[in-house]
């Protein structure tokens, strides 16, 4: 139990997908303009990531390895991820049209969120078991959501600040996220394995 908790902390904070591994930066920059859509995006990504990790684990262990098809790994993973994203898209459109509109193009773009594929591949690479894979994916997704939320909060505040014209928009967002990354560096070397 405590190991699982440590894994979650490790993946969410110490090895944060966004700020330490630099995966999935596109939605972080794109959907962090307001908190509600950031939360929605975080939830959608968490959903996709966890589901994709489960599906890719099954794919890896029940299909690719038995048939010696490891060379198809990336291809099949992308296929699975794309399907999960499609499903999520329909789901979000059904239950929250407002969120669907707010997320816009970034929702189908979860497909190309490298964090999703990256985590699935890392799971294979590090030979995680099924539940461990799930936890790893979930922890990563929580880390992603955390950063997305924090960053959205910061951007909401910055949006109402008197940022000089030269820095307004994307530049100041990059400055802010780099300072956020500095803050996360404090967790580096956090000895969570005990």
């Amino acid at each position, binding site marked *: 139990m405590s190991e699982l908790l440590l894994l979650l902390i490790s993946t969410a904070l110490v090895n944060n997908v966004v700020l330490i591994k630099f995966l999935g930066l596109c939605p972080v920059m794109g959907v962090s303009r307001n908190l509600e859509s950031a939360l929605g995006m975080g939830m959608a990504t968490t959903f996709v990531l966890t589901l994709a990790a489960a599906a890719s684990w099954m794919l890896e262990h029940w299909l690719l390895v038995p048939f010696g098809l490891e060379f198809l790994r990336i291809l099949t993973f992308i296929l699975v991820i794309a399907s999960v994203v499609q499903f999520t898209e329909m789901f979000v459109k059904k239950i929250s049209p407002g969120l669907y509109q707010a997320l816009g193009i970034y929702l189908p773009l979860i497909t190309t969120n490298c964090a999703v594929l990256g985590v699935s591949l890392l799971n294979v690479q590090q030979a995680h078991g099924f539940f461990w894979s799930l936890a790893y994916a979930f922890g990563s997704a929580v880390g992603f959501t955390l950063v997305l939320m924090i960053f959205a909060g910061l951007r909401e505040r910055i949006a109402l600040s008197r940022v000089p014209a030269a820095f307004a928009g994307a530049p100041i967002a990059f400055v802010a996220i780099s300072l956020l990354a500095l803050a996360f*560096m404090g967790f580096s070397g956090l000895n969570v394995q005990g």
Partner: protein
Amino acid sequence: MNADGYHADRVFASPHAHGGGEIRRTMLQVQLALVPATLFGFWLYGWPAFFLWLLTLFFAQIFEVISLRLTGNTGQTGSPGDGSALLTGWLLAMTLPPWSAWWIGALGAFIAIVIGKQVFGGLGQNVFNPAMAARVALLVSFPLQLTAWVVPLPLSGLDAPGFLDGLRITLGQIPVPDAMTSASLLGYAKTELSRGLGLAQAFAAGHAPQLSWPGVRAGSMGESSVLLILAGGVFLLATDVIRWQAPLGVLAGALIPASIAHVIAPETHLDAASHLLSGALMLGAFFIATDYVTSPATGAGRLIFGLGAGLLTWIIRTLGGYPEGVAFAILFMNALTPLIDRYVRPRILGRTRSGQPIRGAGK
């Protein structure tokens, strides 16, 4: 004289009175509160400390003036005379190794004032504490220089560097002799623990850093005399410049888990007093976590902010790769501040917490 000649030149909005508070005065009060600890630091670490302090403040003000000139000083983004840049520079200087070369101070001032504050729009617009952003950026970029603590050589002593030697040290012409550098207590404990030694064993060794309330030890100016920092903090509390929630939160957030851990595993965990007396916990609690701009605006929010910063400090100190975590912890909590401010709000009079009008309480 009669009133029929009176004509208002514009529309004046109410109120037509003001309590007399001024930003400038607030900044001055905080600087005043820093004076005792700073003077003690000068005495403790000699002329180099003074020069570094002077240079950092100078550069902070220079960068402030240049930035305001470039962005077109509109008055609402702060004026060069409001003292905020000097305060930022001062706080930064308090956290640097006192014998650092001049460019550490200059670069730090640049990061703090320009990147940490002015690109966000100047005074009041930044989301991270400028001094802490600069300190962290320097630490991860120049870990060696930022941990080169010198043993105290009080000005009154014979072996303290003189005025000119001090100047040379600050200008980087004389390298700081290795024999004079020393680990801070937190760094020492971390190193010894990573070598597999227990704390009791480590502190039994003769070269272990000693702790004392007056604070004669290696460290930065802001870390040495905990008592003088505390005095400054109490002054700020008494003059109502800062509120109690954030300092209390930081101290409680760090010291409570430290005490519990020490009771459970004294061999691997420093006691609360060591945590309090070493590092920048006190400075962080009273001077950094209380920064208006980058901490929550409500009392409850400030308490959460403080507790979070304290707890993270302890976690980083105990489990992390860095010996000191105050700056990281506060930077992280700065990032959380907008979220705290959004979700922790006072109940509006006549409404429930969810914003609905309360029910009439009987007729």
